[in-house]
């Protein structure tokens, strides 16, 4: 059973432990700007929303990459960027309609969530269980995926 990140914004307090853990483990710095998960703060509603790649089925980023630098991790279902192959062309950053691949000017490569190989640091760091790593078929990601399906930049093929 593949797992995915389950995000429950109602539980998020905005402590940014996820961003710190992510940037530390993946980029070697405690710097939210380098985190692959991002907490959005809607001040007017007093609402915090952690947001990252859903490892969507369409994988726009992977399809658009000209040099095969994004591949599917068969075990976790994550779409993973290879730093060795990425040329930093940024095509994936405009192809992903969810805005979850970012260009990192200091390395000249892009960064996106890779589920930390199946043991996501953000979920471990979250003190309120706003981010959990659970069986894919009952995650709240479904809601986002449904919304995502509407994006439909591509085809609506008959099943």
């Amino acid at each position, binding site marked *: 059973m593949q797992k995915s990140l389950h995000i429950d914004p109602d539980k998020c307090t905005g402590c940014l432990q996820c961003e710190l853990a992510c940037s530390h483990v993946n980029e070697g710095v405690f710097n939210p700007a380098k985190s692959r998960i991002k907490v959005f703060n809607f001040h007017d509603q007093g609402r915090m929303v952690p947001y990252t790649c859903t490892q969507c089925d369409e994988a726009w980023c992977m399809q658009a990459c000209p040099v095969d630098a994004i591949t599917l991790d068969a075990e976790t279902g994550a779409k993973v960027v290879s730093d060795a192959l990425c040329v930093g062309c940024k095509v994936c950053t405009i192809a992903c309609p969810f805005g979850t691949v970012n260009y990192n*000017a200091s390395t000249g490569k892009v960064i996106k969530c890779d589920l930390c190989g199946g043991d996501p640091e953000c979920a471990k760091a979250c003190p309120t269980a706003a981010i959990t790593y659970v069986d894919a078929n009952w995650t709240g990601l479904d809601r986002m995926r449904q919304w995502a399906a509407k994006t439909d930049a591509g085809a609506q093929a008959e099943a």
Partner: protein
Amino acid sequence: MQHVIVGAGPAGVVAAETLRKGDRAADIVLIGDEPEPPYSRMAIPYVLEGMIEQSGTYLRKAQGHYEDLGIQYRQGRAEALAAADGTLTLEGGEAVSYDRLLIATGATPLSPPVPGLDLPGVHNCWTLADCREIAALLGDDANVVLIGAGFIGCIIMEALAKRCGTLSVVEMEDRMVSRMMDATAGGMLERWCAAKDIRVLTSARVTAIEAAKGAGGDKAVVLDSGERLDAHLVVLAVGVAPNIGFLEGSGIRTDHGVLVNEHLESSAAGVFAAGDVAQGLDFSTGEYSVHAIQPTATEHGRIAALNMLGRRAHYKGSLNMNVLATVGLVSSSFGSWEGVAGGDSGVAVDEDAFKYLRLEFEGDHLVGALGLGLTDHVGVIRGLIQNRTALAEWKEKLLENPHRVMEAYVAHSQT
């Protein structure tokens, strides 16, 4: 079922893989006329820069990828098509028959109408063969003149600047990347290049390239102002045109490119087209345009293949969008960035920081955008445009501060 694909660029390769995914038994033949494994021409600048080897441009990296998938990749150049009897004729006379055909032949660079293009050291930057020629002439002492500062010219500029002595850029239009940049962004880009010691001459026309041995090179690029730019290497990037020549007499309807419907099928049943060669539905305008960009090539390839498999997949049209770095300054443009009649625009500009964001709305929908110096979450602009998201109260917030675009997106996707 015999599927034949002409042209082994991104559109052709994605189509071949999609066909295999959908039909384990079909015969799939991928025909390309370049003497290389299928590669991505958009990765060429990174070879010139020295970041990757030529093999780094290959579309698929696994050894035996095509054989393993049972995709027959072969060399050949299509010369004629008889759509009525389902035969493609290759150079040399060989006839290849098909049940379904995909035309994915891409485009060819245009030449500026000036004498001297046949001099040694004058090159397009379009194929790996061009790349090898250019690389051989680059070096710390090389004076390079780039003709054309459009989208592709600007991308190449970065690689050339890193590997040459002096670089001059000649552009006929009054600003750089005029087709994806307004005057504000174009001006900022020009200032940026000047600060990097690149001489950009806009509103300048080349009248000839002449052989002229001297200290600065072995030829001179002559401008309409009378100025002569000495050069060892001249690189041309003045635009491209779809490769439709071999379709003459086939009866297939063409305009600028091969005209295709929402199934990416041409006027001949069973013949499809994808990528730089296809003139398909434009998401923003509802008209038929050639969008010669990588994301369109791969989307076209996938959807054309689904239709070749008989699954009537509808394409909602391609969004004209681009992202590029001009000697380090990242710019992006999406859809109707020039705005639409009766629409509104939200603009944030910081000239000193080289940051600019312009959002264009129609009613409460985002329809286009242009950005400079932005690298975070740019993809949501595409998402909002192609979703036709009703922004409601967020439109006002975005008019006030366009940089909140990602927040607007998250607010809509999470509630």
